[in-house]
């Protein structure tokens, strides 16, 4: 599954990465995996963030599978 990062998270983690999902997984579990990496992963994901699945805002208990695009980003500040 492709994970894309934006804004502050893009600067910390890079634009995107691929992780392998063998089954449907809750977004919160993916986030927990990322935080286990420690360091800035733990720091940044301890602050407020939002997620989108295939370009639509999603809740933390939404499920993703390997063909989805998951985006993780800070609360939006446009306008």
């Amino acid at each position, binding site marked *: 599954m492709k994970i894309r990062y*934006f804004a502050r998270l893009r600067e910390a983690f890079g634009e995107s990465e691929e992780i392998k999902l063998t089954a449907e997984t809750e977004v919160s579990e993916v986030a927990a995996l990322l935080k286990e990496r420690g360091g800035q992963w733990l720091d940044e994901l301890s602050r407020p963030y939002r997620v*989108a699945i295939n370009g639509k805002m999603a809740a933390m208990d939404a499920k993703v599978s390997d063909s989805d695009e998951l985006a993780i980003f800070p609360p*939006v500040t*446009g*306008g």
Partner: protein
Amino acid sequence: MKVVIQQSDFDVAREMAEIRKSHPEIGAMVNFVGLVRDFGEAGRVREMMLEHYPGMTERCLEALLVEANERWKIVDATVVHRVGSLLPGDQIVLVLVASHHRKEAFRAAEFLMDRLKTEAPFWKKEHTVEGWRWVDAKASDEAASSEWM
């Protein structure tokens, strides 16, 4: 209804003319234009960078226009949002709503701005005397947006 994300500036009068020429039944147009302020939370702003999520941003704004159209009797609407490097005084965003009567246009324009602020994937970074910093989301924007629920 039109959504445009662009780096270049926009001309409010030209966007209005485009809608007016095809809709003689319009009686009211409300425009909101957001500008880069010269002062932010960290002091004087020298420059601003705006980032977005191509694809998602457009779809999000189109969905907001569809919702505005369902809730109020509007005739047409345009949203233009700039990305990239902006300077103090520059235009950031245009929300333009055309309707038969003024109340619908005011309501729809305010709705679009409030929801854009909390839902459309844009992020601002400001350059001040302390360097670059990401702008924090505001609780007041969340409150304004949730009033339309």
